[in-house]
């Protein structure tokens, strides 16, 4: 097949468009989430993720997460050197499926919660935290 100039333009622009279609942060976090869920689709709305809007000290950022009907919740921080934060598995004696803890954030970033529900479906919530002083040493 002979490549004409017109075909060349069409194929190359298609290639560029597909590149631009990728999210800007096709990051380690997304890979980890895909690994966790096995590529299942993520619903939204069931998780309540409470984070401060601005954290002055990235060493201790209070995080609150609740998801009625969840079996487990996994937390990620997408701007940390290692995005994993914690995995919380709820036992039969936990009625509210909620927990709060304190985490380290290296810089301004999103905190992501992914929950596996009792019916096997997945839920996600994301919240941005602005960090004044990072919390991972240097």
């Amino acid at each position, binding site marked *: 097949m002979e490549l004409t100039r017109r075909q060349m333009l069409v194929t190359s622009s298609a290639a560029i468009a597909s590149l631009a279609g990728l999210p800007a942060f096709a990051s380690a976090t997304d890979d980890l989430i895909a690994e966790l869920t096995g590529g299942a689709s993520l619903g939204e709305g069931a998780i309540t993720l409470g984070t401060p809007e601005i954290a002055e000290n990235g060493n201790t950022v209070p995080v609150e997460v609740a998801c009625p009907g969840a079996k487990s919740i996994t937390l990620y921080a997408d701007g940390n050197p290692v995005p*994993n934060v914690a*995995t*919380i*598995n*709820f*036992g039969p004696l936990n009625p509210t499926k909620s927990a*709060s*803890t*304190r985490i380290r954030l290296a810089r301004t970033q999103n905190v992501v919660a992914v929950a596996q529900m009792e019916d096997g479906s997945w839920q996600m919530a994301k919240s941005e935290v602005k960090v004044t002083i990072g919390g991972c040493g240097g």
Partner: protein
Amino acid sequence: MAKGVKPRVKVPKSASAGETITIKSLISHKMESGQRKDKEGNVIPRSIINRFVVDFNGQNVIDVTLEPAISTNPYFQFDAVVPEAGEFKFTWYDDDGSVYETSKSIEVN
């Protein structure tokens, strides 16, 4: 065993049967992330608590896997339902193999 590890938990002394109570737990631990460097530029090796489990009379309440992104002196607050009088058992697992345990009993009135 890491130095100065002291677990502290707050559980109400009594509850009515089937009541939902809030439990707070804290353990003093430096949670060295493995990301920091000392003055000579050597990486300080990771030393964290990697798992925290709470059971009530043998039934699980919460089981948390901790990563280095959990702050120094890991703190957790969560809810539990109390079906009968008994004992909450808290267990923390350290990277170095140590296990820290504490328990609190609760009465039902």
